[in-house]
């Protein structure tokens, strides 16, 4: 869930990097190489400091990532946040209602609307966002002047570091009812246009924002993959009479294929997460019919309506399905012969 913003930075570039698998391999190898392991006590004495060093991070994760899992019991309750002034105490005082919340969710057209919007956005981003960094990377890679490359990269990376609040504010100034586009249209005798509040084009708007913000950043991975193609391959292909286009087809694209496949699979694994903050900020502008996704559905019902049990149930459904998706995606990645996030 993206409400913890920090870990999200850099996930795009992260993907090929998510290779604890590789490290696990290395670990195994070194251990094996090391031969007989010393006993537990001496190892503890030796590694005590190392373990202590991991404690702060591990504690934070246990408290803020693991412990709340237990809180999902409210999904099975008619949770009353006002029974006490402490969330945990309120859990103890709220009645259990079994699967009632889930039954209601499945009958709730708003929930299914949120599912539909989530999937539509996911597909749209897949089709319209995903290819952009690849194309940009190919373009930049073909630029030979280092200064031009550096400047172009600096410019294109920049929006990645902007907050969603800022990105949406920028879009509002460009495409909103009082924005640049409307202003120009009006000055030239046309009526203004408000793209920011049009529910019909909302999925495209959201995708365009994602492209503006993150497509530039996404090229890092592909540039790296492109850079790792040995130059002799190109040379050999050229010697064999392959032209620009054929070299692209036979050398460059195959080199990118594994990265593309991996990113694609991982994206599918993350299909139900389509930009919580971005959409929450714009939900009201287009109305929930177009602007409600699963994550905002949870927010609305829980934070806004104080219907925590119901919201938690929806969140739990999303969470469970997401785990299934991500595990499946990794499985597929393995079958395709790529490094997944984890190793069996």
């Amino acid at each position, binding site marked *: 869930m993206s409400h913890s913003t920090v870990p999200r930075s850099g996930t795009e570039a992260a993907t090929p990097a998510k290779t604890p698998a590789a490290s696990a391999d290395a670990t195994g190898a070194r251990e094996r190489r090391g031969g007989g392991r010393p006993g537990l006590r001496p190892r503890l004495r030796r590694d005590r400091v190392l373990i202590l060093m991991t404690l702060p991070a591990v504690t934070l994760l246990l408290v803020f990532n693991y412990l709340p899992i237990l809180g999902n019991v409210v999904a099975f309750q008619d949770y009353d946040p006002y029974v006490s002034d402490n969330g945990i105490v309120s859990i103890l005082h709220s009645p259990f209602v079994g699967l009632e919340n889930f039954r209601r969710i499945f009958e709730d057209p708003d929930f299914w609307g949120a599912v539909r919007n989530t999937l539509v956005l996911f597909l749209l981003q897949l089709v319209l966002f995903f290819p952009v960094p690849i194309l940009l990377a190919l373009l930049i890679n073909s630029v030979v002047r280092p200064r031009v490359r550096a400047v172009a990269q600096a410019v294109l990376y920049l929006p990645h570091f902007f907050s969603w*609040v800022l990105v949406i504010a920028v879009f509002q100034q*460009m495409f909103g009812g009082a924005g640049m586009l409307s202003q120009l249209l009006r000055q030239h005798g046309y009526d203004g246009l408000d793209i920011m509040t049009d529910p019909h084009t909302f999925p495209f708007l959201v995708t365009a924002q994602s492209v503006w913000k993150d497509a530039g950043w996404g090229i890092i991975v592909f540039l790296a993959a492109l850079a790792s193609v040995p130059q002799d391959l190109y040379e050999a292909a050229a010697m064999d009479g392959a032209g620009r286009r054929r070299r692209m087809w036979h050398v460059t694209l195959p080199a990118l294929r594994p990265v593309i496949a991996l990113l694609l699979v991982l994206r599918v694994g993350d299909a139900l997460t389509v930009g919580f903050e971005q959409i929450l900020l714009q939900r009201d502008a287009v109305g929930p019919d177009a602007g409600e996704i699963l994550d905002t559905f949870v927010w609305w019902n829980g934070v806004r309506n104080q219907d925590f049990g119901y919201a938690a149930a929806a969140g739990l459904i999303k969470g469970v399905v997401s785990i299934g998706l991500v595990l499946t995606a990794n499985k597929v990645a393995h079958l395709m012969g790529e490094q997944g996030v984890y190793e069996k």
Partner: protein
Amino acid sequence: MTAVVDRPTGRPGRWAAPARPAWEEEPSKAGLAGKALVLSLACLAVLFPLWIVVVTSLSSRRTIDEAGGLVIVPRGITFIAYQELLGGGQVTRAAVVSILVTLAGTLFSMTVSVLCAYGLSRTGSLGHRWILMVLLATMFFSAGLIPTYLLVQSLGLTDTYLALILPSAVSVFNILVLRGFFMGISQELLDSARIDGAGDLRILWQIVVPLSRAVLAVITLFYAVGYWSAWFNASLYLNDQDKMPLQNVMIQLVQRQQQPVGLGQAIRTGQLSGLAVQMAVMVMALLPVAVLSPFVQKHFKKGMLTGAVKG
């Protein structure tokens, strides 16, 4: 992992094209022009809106009225919007809050992450696989918004700045990148230090950290940008409007079109342009990021990819 920027250059003149390999054919004029056009358009798509934001923030009420709103061509520059915003009050306070939370949060996150990454960087150390599992598993699940909210609330973090730092302090991804980089440091070097009697903390501080400047710069930037950009936790956990960071104030002032505390009357009566004030807030939010990130840019590739891919 080297080539992107370090492709054979060798020619003097930073804007000049380096030598083209003998086997590569000369590109067509049309192709070059097309490439240049697309690339320029892409860069323009990023820079044009920013230009307008900056120019409008520096324009007077009169210029803005003449332009009918946003200003493309600057006509005289005034810093009045900034003077009003930075003269104490809501936006000044929000900027200070954002800066302090970003500094404190980044320092905390970096300390925790570097320690953890180093602690996990020696393969075969006791419990290291288990701890790694604890870290990795978090990449697969999320406890969910509601339970996390209830927990933070139960811990009494509501309305404290800790709620903006602690729940999102650790990025497992960042730790893995750091760890990957640390593991790439020559073991011989570390072993000799150890033989000299150096403890792990000293090795980390005196050898590992200096050798990892690039990756540390990158990860610091990631954390800092994360804290600087965050608004959701503040909207969720802070009740006191006076504690709100800059992003949340930006939501109020730009997205919800409210007037800054204390400046409402000046804007309602037209003494101050509401639009210029909005733009100035946006500039304040983007400026630190736009200024700092290009400096770190040269490390992105090196820090990120080497760090990550090694592992």
